[in-house]
């Protein structure tokens, strides 16, 4: 057995070799998610100080912002893997895109829900039709459309590709969400954290938010890996290795 086998990305682009890799990574990501979310929650409630203007209501920020980031980021990742699947015709990329969609939709829902619960005590309304909120709602519809379209098509290859086209068309919405608070005058406040300027938050608050975001990130990876493993088993059921795998489990 050669120990000097070169690491190859192509090796892991086959579902058969990715399946055990995903299985090995998933518990670690789950553990990190628990760890980061735990630390994040501790900072959110016991370290971060009360906000000067919003009092305790601002503590929603720790999940709201993290969930909103994930909702946009997961869509971009989904669009990326959809594109790769469409162009290079790699089955695994399409499976990853399929596996990302439900988690992305969940985080979009969480962002909208926590946003409503944050908006009521601070702005004085659950919902307004400003650019940020509207475009985030469209993002949720795009996720649902992607899932519904893939669910409606029986032919797997076609479902993958049709979903990919939809995902790529919808990518245009992500920069609109992100920049909406700059382009329009919205009720929604601007970004507290950006690449171009210093964050406008107290250090401990920022730390709590970033760690929560890391936790959600790890959670998303773990959930996606778990889902992609189910998808691989379902779609590769005609192969011998899946048969052997199931025999080993059952």
């Amino acid at each position, binding site marked *: 057995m050669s120990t000097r086998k070169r690491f190859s990305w192509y090796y892991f682009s086959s579902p058969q070799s990715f399946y055990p890799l995903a299985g090995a990574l998933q518990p670690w990501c789950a553990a990190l998610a628990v760890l980061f979310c735990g630390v994040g929650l501790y900072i959110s409630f016991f370290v971060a*100080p009360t906000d*000067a203007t919003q009092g305790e209501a601002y503590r929603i920020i720790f999940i709201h912002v993290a969930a909103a980031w994930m909702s946009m980021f997961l869509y971009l990742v989904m669009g990326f893997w959809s594109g790769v699947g469409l162009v290079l015709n790699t089955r695994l990329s399409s499976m990853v895109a399929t596996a990302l969609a439900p988690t992305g939709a969940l985080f979009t829902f969480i962002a909208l829900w926590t946003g409503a619960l944050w908006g009521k005590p*601070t702005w004085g309304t659950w919902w307004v039709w*400003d650019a940020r909120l509207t475009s985030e709602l469209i993002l949720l519809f795009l996720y649902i459309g992607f899932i519904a379209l893939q669910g409606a098509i029986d032919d797997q290859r076609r479902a993958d590709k049709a979903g990919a086209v939809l995902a790529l068309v919808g990518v245009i919405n992500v920069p609109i969400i992100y920049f909406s608070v700059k*382009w*329009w005058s919205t009720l929604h406040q601007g970004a507290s954290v950006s690449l171009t300027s210093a964050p406008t938050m107290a250090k401990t608050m920022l730390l709590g938010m970033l760690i929560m975001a890391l936790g959600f990130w790890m959670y998303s990876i773990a959930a996606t890996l778990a889902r992609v493993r189910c998808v691989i088993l379902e779609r590769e059921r005609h192969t011998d290795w899946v048969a052997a795998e199931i025999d080993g489990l059952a």
Partner: protein
Amino acid sequence: MKPRHKRFVLVGVGIAGLALSATLVLSAFQKNLVFFYTPSQVFAKEAPVGKSFRIGGLVENGSLKREADGVTVQFVVTDTAKSIPVYYRGILPDLFKEGKGVVTEGRLAPDGTFHADEVLAKHDENYMPPAAQEAINEAKANTAAQSLVMPPKGK
């Protein structure tokens, strides 16, 4: 035309279209596509007439008054250049404070006052503990006081 040329033409048309679209969209953003109007815009007659719309700005310090009936409030929205008096019957959001941001929806009366149906607080993206806020306020007050005492040179 050869297929290669056809593709070339199509890609060229595509790039030109994208450029055109980007120019148009960006130039549209220069104009007023807004969720709310500032008092200056209202004075410049850019705001809708005979229709309810939103104005946004800061609540002027010391302008908040409650009428005798206890539910009608009166305050002034300002963008530091112009200001508009606002009347509102109802409950104000918790974050509504003098000197803070506000977005309010209603109609402009002929006498130039604004009759609001809804008042929303607009907060900024700054989050900090009360102590830090006080320090900033103090610093601002100090610089303001200094600029009062010592006018800038060259004037």
